[in-house]
């Protein structure tokens, strides 16, 4: 249980996928103009990450058994992710139309989000079946970490929009500088866990 919480906290905050792992920056800068869209993206990403992570962890064992892991894992995991996204989109569209209205536009973007494939590749590298608690913590922690950071950043962006920034630095440029300051906070927690 201690291992679970340690892995959860470390993947959520200390080795945060955006600020310490530099993944998912495109959607991080693109979606975070409004906190409502950041929230939608976070929920959709958490859902897809959780299931694709677990599926890819299982498939890692299967591919190793067949001895094609080295050259097939990237292809298999991206296929799993894109079909899972498509499947989720269909299910939500059919059974939860109101949810589809809010999350629908973010789902296709998740296929090309580095966080999801990065998580799948990270989880697929576990060779031991007893690592399940750690894997479970990782597949929960990584998207939740992304969620926290994109929510915080969207609040910062909303303030930056109305603040008096130098003309050319408006938008992404000042956002990246703000990200650097956020990264200092995460970097400071480096030795804790």
């Amino acid at each position, binding site marked *: 249980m201690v291992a679970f919480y340690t892995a959860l906290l470390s993947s959520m905050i200390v080795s945060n996928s955006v600020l310490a792992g*530099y993944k998912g*920056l495109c959607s991080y800068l693109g979606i975070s103009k409004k906190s409502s869209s950041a929230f939608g993206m976070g929920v959709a990403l958490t859902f897809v990450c959780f299931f694709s992570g677990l599926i890819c962890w299982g498939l890692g064992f299967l591919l190793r058994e067949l001895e094609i892991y080295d050259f097939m894992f990237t*292809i298999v995991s991206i*296929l799993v992710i894109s079909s899972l996204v498509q499947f989720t989109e269909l299910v939500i569209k059919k059974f939860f139309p109101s949810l589809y209205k809010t999350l629908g536009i973010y789902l296709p973007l998740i*296929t*090309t989000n*580095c966080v999801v494939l990065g998580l799948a590749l990270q989880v697929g590298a576990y060779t031991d079946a007893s690592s399940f608690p750690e894997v479970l913590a990782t597949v929960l922690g990584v998207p939740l970490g992304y969620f926290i950071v994109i929510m915080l950043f969207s609040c910062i962006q909303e303030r930056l*929009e109305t603040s008096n920034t130098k003309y050319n*630095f408006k938008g992404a440029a000042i956002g990246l500088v703000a990200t650097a300051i956020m990264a200092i906070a995460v970097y400071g927690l480096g030795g804790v866990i």
Partner: protein
Amino acid sequence: MKNQVEKVQNTPENVAQPEKNVEKKGHDRKKVFLAGIIKDNPVLVMLLGLCPVIPATTSIINALMMFIAVLFVLVCSNLIISLIKGIVPKEIRIPVYIVIIASLVTVIDLLLQAYAPDVSNSLGVFIPLITVNCIILGRAEAFASKNSVLDSLLDALGMSIGFGLACLVIAIFREFLGTGGFTLTNPFNSDQSVSWLPLKDLALPVMVQGIGGFLTFGIIVGLFAWITKSKVPGKNSDTTLKSQYSTLKEIEACRKEGKETK
């Protein structure tokens, strides 16, 4: 009913877009090539494919190797996709493109692991992550699936050179500030290396880490917008200017709304 109306409205636009492209590109191939370098620079203007930018710009060699990997994948994927554009059914085109890109990425990943293990180690997971790089799927979807083979090749070359130059500029600043000079190591044989470290005692190691990466990247994006706006008049800075104008308009609208509610 609504859906049908939307579809009808959408189709003329969809048909019109490729024609526009052909017209634009037809009379000037040079424009296609140069667009990716300055006007539509994927990293500094369109802000696409940012995942590899921060980890790959810790040193000049890493930036160069990432550029080579992206060049290989983008040129091959644009070539293949523009060749098969007539055969692939529209509904499953994205999975088909992704599988093609993923196979190309696996090729370059295994090649780097075999011949340049140091670079492969330092770039780590970011080589397989080229699969989901927005530049590559974006160019496949927006350009290669609508244009001829030669145009797609030129577009791929221009886009990847734009990506490489942006990475190189960021890497030069980060490496100089972070290590106090430059170190060039032969990526295929790590024993051969040349280093020039005049400011070694004044080095700021934080610049080589993520924090410095975000900071340098942000400042260079801002400076690039400033340079393209002042030096290249008119069309070349359209993209940045448009986005800036739209944000400014939004802010004005927000302020007006705020005043009204008060």
